[in-house]
């Protein structure tokens, strides 16, 4: 394996991985950005200056730019405080991504591990089922779910729906890794020592796939953020005042100006409504993708690509 001399010795694999991760500044920065946005999402109700969706009627038709007194990020065309809207949008995006990643990873690991370890007809069947689920684009299902429920879907609802659809990537990675690990000598040794299949799988094989699992879970976070934002952008519902989303805010910036304002305003006049959600979304996705690459290099050194 590609571990360097200074990594060996008595340090455990996690300590070695943490050292490798710490050597790459961009990975650390990406992790900090992702954690920061997730914490902001978690604490949004505490951080928000106003209740979400509250209208400041005196400001209707005259959206205020950022740094207005009492409204640090300004107000939108419906006179809502934009900082509050942004905080809740981040909360919606990060919480659905977190629920989806946790659930999809659990499903994917279970199916992938059993399929890869036992193979046979269950392996064939789960490969087929993975193909079936992967052949329905998750975006399509989310749009249908939005139509179906006729009101903004809660982040938990989005997370649960995506979890049912996005486990396929995790299952593929775990399945192929487990299939290659089950022929290793240490598995044979454990079996010779009388360990049951369940014990071999959970104690010997799965811990050795934890790097792949973490990297695949990071990829799911990125996918779910993109899909939720796209669905919110496309199936944009006008009454989302109490449930702002990053995709919905981008959509709001393009639609509401011409639908709500009685005087015409170009996007340049209302730039903050477009720039803040867009930049937050791109920053979050960029951080998740850099973090995924840095984690892959730190946790799966044997597969590391040269840079």
């Amino acid at each position, binding site marked *: 394996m590609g571990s360097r001399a200074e990594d060996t010795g008595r340090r455990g694999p996690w300590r070695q991985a943490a050292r490798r991760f710490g050597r790459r500044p961009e990975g650390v920065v990406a992790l900090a950005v992702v954690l920061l946005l997730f914490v902001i999402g978690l604490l949004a109700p505490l951080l928000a200056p106003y209740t979400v969706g509250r209208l400041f009627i005196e400001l209707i038709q005259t959206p205020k730019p950022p740094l207005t007194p009492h409204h640090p990020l300004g107000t939108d065309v419906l006179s809502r405080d934009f900082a509050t809207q942004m905080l809740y949008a981040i909360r919606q995006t990060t919480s659905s991504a977190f629920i989806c990643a946790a659930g999809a990873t659990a499903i994917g690991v279970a199916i992938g591990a059993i399929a890869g370890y036992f193979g046979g007809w269950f392996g064939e069947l789960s490969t*087929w089922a993975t*193909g*079936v689920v*992967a*052949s*329905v*684009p*998750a*975006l*399509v299902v989310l*749009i*249908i779910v939005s*139509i*179906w429920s*006729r009101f903004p879907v809660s982040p938990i609802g989005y997370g649960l729906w995506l979890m049912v659809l996005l486990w396929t990537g995790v299952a*593929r990675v775990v399945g192929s890794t487990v299939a290659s690990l089950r022929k290793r000598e240490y598995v044979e040794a454990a079996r010779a020592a009388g360990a049951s299949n369940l014990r071999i799988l959970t104690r010997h094989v799965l811990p050795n796939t934890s790097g792949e699992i973490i990297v695949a879970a990071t990829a799911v976070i990125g*996918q779910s953020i*993109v*899909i939720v*934002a*796209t669905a919110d*952008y*496309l*199936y*944009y519902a006008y009454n989302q005042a109490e449930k702002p989303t990053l*995709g919905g805010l*981008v*959509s709001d910036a*393009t*639609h509401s*100006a*011409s*639908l709500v304002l009685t005087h*015409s*305003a*170009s*996007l*340049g006049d209302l730039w903050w409504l477009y720039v803040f959600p*867009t930049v937050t*979304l*791109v920053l979050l*996705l*960029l951080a998740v*993708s*850099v973090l995924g690459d840095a984690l892959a290099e730190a946790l799966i050194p044997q597969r590391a*690509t*040269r840079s």
Partner: protein
Amino acid sequence: MILFVVRRLLLAISTILAVSFGAFVAFGTSFDPSGPLAASPDAAAHRARELVQAHYHLTDPILSRYVRWLGGFFDHGFGTTVSLNVGGSPPRFITEGDPIGPQLMHAAGISAQLVGAALVLVLLGSALIGTFSAQRHRYRSDVGVRVFAYLGAAVPTFLIGDLLARAIVGNSVTVTAGTRQFPAAGSVFLLGPPTGGAVDWLRHMTLPVIALAIGLVGVYSRYVRSSMLVALDQPYVMTARAKGLPERRVLYRHALRNSLIPLTSALTLEIGAVIGASIAVDGVFATGGLASMFLEAVGRSDPFEMTALVVTTAGLVCVFMFVGDVLVALLDPRIRAAA
């Protein structure tokens, strides 16, 4: 090779069958298209609703409805939407529902053109940029290209589309299907569906295709780059160079050909996500593909139409996967031999 193709075809058919079953059961049990008739309390509406339910077998057990739908599919395709235009006493249908098939096939065709053109662009673009980057490994141009690749891959497709669409129609406009505005006068590129002819097609489809391709080129050029870096270290490349072949031939004929195989199979695995992204692009540019059908289905809650849409989307995924699998088999003789 024939055995390989037959196996892949069977896989595709079984996948579409499973999707149709899942979609039909999910939509059939949760949507009741006769619902609007239940809104008015009078007896005539009640009888009309009973007629609609009986005509479309809406109250039968779901399994027998699926079998009926599947049998009907082989007979007359996706059939018609549910018609609620019932009147008279005793109630009878004044008009039939709209046929689903023709409009859906047209939309699927446009989506297929969008995805197909974007995939060709992705294969060419990733191969060229990845090779360029690998050749100039660690030079400044390599680093610059990689930063752009990262950015392109991180920006969601709908946002790229939104920005490009703004370039056509100016800044003060709304750019989504439904509330579409006309592009600025004299614009080369247009929003809306292509209406015929190659020039018109290019004016409508160039920007959507580019919007769809940018993110994918970002992902897969990095993929080509790292597999090219591995390939350029292999003994066969050294042999080719030692034979005195020109560097261009070594790069493109020897190293790149072997890097294209993992690229094509990775792209094939991700086809579902690509078609999902194409729906986002289609929604932004209103090119008249499957997205407009999905967005129009808002509120109609017709299980037959919804099932048809989902089955067609899955069918599109399966067609592209099949083409990808055959391409990989053509590029890699070992896969043909294994089948």
